[in-house]
């Protein structure tokens, strides 16, 4: 199994469009949408025969007021500012609650129950270029890293079951837990950036996270011609840090037009400059030892 992860640091640089394009280049693949906060690939690939599993993202403390004596002991123990008391009535703020169980354990009246957040889902299905695995975190829930791990585990099973050796992981933005879960143990990490000061700033942080795991990412500069000078700066930074620039993708409205039609750029216009460049980058990435 060869696993390629696509991440970005900064959001909206084109991770999903590029991962999706890679998935439709040749042969069959497994593609995993690890952006469980805002999954999008299923919109593009419209998978069929979907399987669904539920995922418990955490727990929330709920008070049983018939038992609560209002003693306020839980207030002293909570480190997340989630519990307050108004007119002797203890209130738990669902948004701040971390689900650590401590209040439920120390409550002398046994008045606090921990309720699982079980609205998040894991899906897997087939599309015309192979299999798609994705997670959808229910709004406001946390622990997307754990759901990403579940997506990764399912991806591995699917890859073995259907004998599909190539796995593409479309990562979430940022550099936190879900990103770390996306890149752990993969063979290659591609960082997609854009020629803006924010793009470069976030590229540096994303590269740091990859370098921490003793690997070197490669970089795609998307929409490079929106600011050629910034592109040069990014290029220079990559050179100084021994990071390979895998390729430059120009800005082209066709990328958006393709998405609107529910297609990847490869499906939309095979001979477009972007399609050709992505094909070259992919072949180089996959053949690189």
């Amino acid at each position, binding site marked *: 199994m060869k696993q390629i992860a696509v991440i970005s640091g900064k959001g909206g640089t084109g991770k999903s469009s590029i991962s999706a394009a890679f998935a439709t280049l040749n042969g069959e693949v497994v593609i995993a949408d690890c952006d469980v906060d805002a999954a999008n690939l299923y919109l593009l690939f419209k998978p069929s025969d979907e399987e669904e599993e539920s995922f418990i993202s955490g727990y929330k403390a709920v008070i049983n007021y018939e038992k609560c004596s209002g003693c306020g002991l839980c207030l002293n123990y909570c480190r997340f500012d989630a519990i307050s008391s108004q007119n002797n009535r203890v209130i738990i703020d669902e948004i*701040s609650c971390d689900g650590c169980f401590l209040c439920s354990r120390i409550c002398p009246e046994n008045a606090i129950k921990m309720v699982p957040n079980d609205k998040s889902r894991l899906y897997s299905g087939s599309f015309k270029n192979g299999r798609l695995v994705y997670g959808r975190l229910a709004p406001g829930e*946390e622990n997307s890293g754990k759901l990403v791990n579940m997506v990764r585990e399912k991806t591995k099973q699917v890859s073995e079951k259907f004998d599909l050796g190539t796995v593409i992981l479309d990562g979430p933005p940022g550099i936190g837990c879900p990103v770390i879960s996306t890149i752990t143990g993969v063979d290659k990490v591609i960082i997609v950036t854009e020629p803006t000061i924010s793009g470069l700033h976030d590229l540096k942080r994303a590269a740091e996270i990859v370098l921490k795991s003793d690997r070197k990412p490669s970089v795609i500069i998307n929409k490079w011609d929106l600011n050629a000078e910034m592109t040069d700066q990014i290029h220079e930074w990559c050179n100084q840090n021994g990071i390979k620039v895998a390729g430059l993708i120009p800005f082209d409205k066709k990328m958006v037009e393709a998405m609107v039609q529910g297609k990847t750029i490869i499906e939309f216009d095979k001979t477009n400059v972007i399609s050709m460049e992505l094909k070259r980058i992919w072949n180089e990435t996959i053949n690189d030892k």
Partner: protein
Amino acid sequence: MIKIAIASGKGGTGKTFVATNIFHSLMQNNVDAILVDCDAEAPNAAAFFKTRQTGSFEVTKLVPVINADSCTFCGKCHEYCNFNAIFILPPMKIINVIEDLCHGCGACSVACRYDAITEKPVSLGIVKFYSVNDKPVLIEARMNVGVMSPVPVLKAAIKQINDKAEIAILDSPPGTACPFIQTVSASDYVILVTEPTPFGLSDLKQSIDTLKKIDKPFGVIINRAGLGNKDIYKWLKNNNIAILAEVPFSQEIAHIYSEGRLIADSDKNYEIQFYNICNWIKQELNDEVLMK
């Protein structure tokens, strides 16, 4: 004071673009405003202003330190830990804390009956204060690279908002999960920035579902108008959701942003438009209070 969060489900739709331009427009119009960069994983707002750092403090969590001499390997702390942060092998007399997994809740200390657990602070990130034009108006949450969650750092930054200011603009992290919720729930109004593409619309719907659940008023700014298709307009109209503004897609705006400059600085019309958006929101919030 009014707190306005600038958020989006999808990343890269232009949250920071809108937040920095609104903030600039408010300052130009002598409004006492603060900008809080809550996107602790990728904080970029400060780069758009001439800033001077005026202070900072570290955000930490308390993680357990287990004294193996007093530990009886009873396993109570492991049982209390809901995050699998304590690894224990009693027959081998091995007990370890996996600091990355620890949420710093303190449950293990409560569990231990042998006084074997003390705590030490571990850095999660830093909250920085900057002045712009010699006014202390910018707060930035910056998570350390390798830390699991931006939430403690961004919560610490939000706590620093001085309530005496007139308006605080909170640049939210992307997504609809915990970091987003923490930012928007601290705000009075949310501006959702989206783009007229299928991905933009799908993520916008998810953000709106979340905001409706927590009963937060919001409006939408469509960025890069002219790209993509009209589906988003139809959907917003059918759902009776206000479009606060549209920013057209233009190579020039993209270029200005890429250099860390502000369109509201180079084009007075944008300054007026962004300023007016805030006035409109203020009015809207006032009306809402009156309705109640």
